[in-house]
């Protein structure tokens, strides 16, 4: 049995259902692997851990990957988990619907300075010719009070986790919400993907194959509506904090992002989206030179 460490990008919750399920249902051990699935946080970075040898596989967002490549890290992208970026904006339904980018004008928009949403929003602004005079930008933190108190109109959330919670919370008070998804306006910024170091990729191809097969099998199974109850039970074991109903809604939302339609194979690389992501980052001066990210994507 081969022991492996797998570092997630964030805490255990429904949006990592596949990772949890693959472990819980024994897909890893069937492949002869013993995988320690570990939670992540902004301070704990999968790419660092790969280099330091603390982890063998990990989850990182595309911008992390591109930045790391820019700085000479040797990593490989093995699978793109999210086909649609969960990074979206929520707004109340009693406000005019955002049908075109121009509808952003005059709104008070929340942005996490330094975060992905800033990069994405800046790109959208550039696309629509919106300048800082046309909108009001408010820096956001982790708590939603300004949005609750209607001080900010359009608030960045992860569609399948916080988005679900907020939606639920507001609906309880009789308020309906919409989500603003940048992909609908032509900005495809890639989100979480499974990565490993080049060393592992080159030296242990059979382990990589076994791991990825098991993992993707886990994800496929987890996203299968037939397994819903079972998946929710496994997630609940790890994530005791939210209630059952919320988790169910989160799982449905996650499914939309991971497997938008039955035809899409989980883990499919959207190479054009990767290229666009790199272009955006280069444009925003987040990297110094082109890194040709497509060269590290497993095809």
């Amino acid at each position: 049995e081969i022991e492996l460490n797998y570092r997630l990008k964030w805490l255990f919750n429904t949006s990592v259902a596949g990772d949890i399920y693959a472990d819980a249902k024994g897909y890893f051990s069937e492949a002869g692997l013993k995988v320690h699935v570990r939670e992540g946080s902004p301070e704990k970075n999968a790419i660092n851990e790969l280099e330091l040898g603390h982890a063998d596989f990990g989850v990182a967002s595309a911008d992390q990957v591109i930045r790391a490549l820019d700085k000479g890290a040797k990593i490989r992208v093995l699978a793109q988990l999210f086909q649609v970026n969960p990074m979206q904006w929520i707004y109340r339904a009693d406000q005019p619907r955002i049908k075109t980018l121009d509808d952003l004008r005059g709104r008070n928009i929340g942005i996490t300075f330094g975060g992905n949403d800033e990069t994405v929003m800046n790109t959208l602004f550039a696309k629509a010719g919106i300048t800082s005079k046309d909108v009001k930008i408010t820096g956001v933190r982790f708590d939603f009070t300004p949005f609750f108190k209607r001080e900010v109109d359009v608030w960045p959330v992860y569609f399948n986790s916080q988005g679900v919670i907020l939606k639920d919370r507001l609906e309880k008070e009789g308020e309906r919400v919409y989500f603003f998804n940048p992909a609908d306006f032509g900005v495809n910024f890639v989100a979480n993907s499974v990565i490993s170091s080049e060393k592992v990729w080159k030296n242990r191809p059979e382990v990589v194959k076994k791991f990825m097969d098991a993992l993707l099998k886990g994800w496929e199974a987890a996203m299968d509506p037939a397994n819903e109850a079972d998946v929710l039970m496994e997630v609940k074991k790890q994530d005791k904090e939210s209630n059952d109903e919320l988790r169910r809604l989160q799982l449905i939302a996650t499914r939309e992002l991971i497997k938008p339609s039955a035809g899409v194979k989980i883990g499919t690389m959207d190479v054009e989206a990767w290229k666009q992501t790199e272009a955006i980052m280069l444009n925003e001066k987040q990297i110094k030179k082109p890194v040709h990210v497509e060269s590290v994507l497993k095809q």
Partner: protein
Amino acid sequence: MLFRRIYQFLIVYSIGLISLLLIKTALSLSDYVIPGFGLILETFQEVFDTYFLDAMNTMSVTVLGQCVSIALAFGVGIAGRRSSWMGSFIKVTAYNIQAYPIVALAPIIFILLGDGFISRLLIASMICYFPLLLSVLGIMATPVEDIEHFYIITGRMRWQLEVKIRAFENLSKLTTVISGSATLAMAGTIVAEFIAANAGIGYSIRVALYQSDLAKILIALFLIGIIISIYQGCLETLGEQIKTRWSVSKGGNPR
């Protein structure tokens, strides 16, 4: 002492809670900004078990972290008590590291130590030790000349003795600071869990924050408060006993 602490905490907490609820009513804020009393109670029943275990988990790290930081503070305080170059260098190091907020150091700590138990303990101790250090430094740097004179002039002074004399003369100050620093160890542990961990009440707070669930946070605060009150009550009782055992009614007493 102990019971007093607990019911005093309950008063404090109630005042806080009632103020929040008053604000809620006054500004007619909805449940998602400030949860109503019913919701809080409901959440309490829902998460009490888990949170209690989490808080106990945190507590165990707190105790250990406090021990480490006491050791650390005394180590650095004793080494840095002299006004020599080395003493001042040690102080500068200790001070500078402290000025760096833990959030900025965390990535470096994780790179160097991984993200296991050690990192969590280190972060907890780092937050707790500095205030201790300040007091220890202050105490250790102030000579007690009317006691020390004999040992100095007869050439018997060793650093251990010097430390013992100064610590003993300032026993009540030290016990105040040490039992007070328990709260800092707790806060430190929670912060460590917040950024590092996979367990403990700090972790639960992070998740609750992520869900913007103020009711859960209020319950976590309640548990933290009650546990720290008990722990501190115990420490203080212990401190009193040490003081009476060592019988410190000192110098000043008119004879």
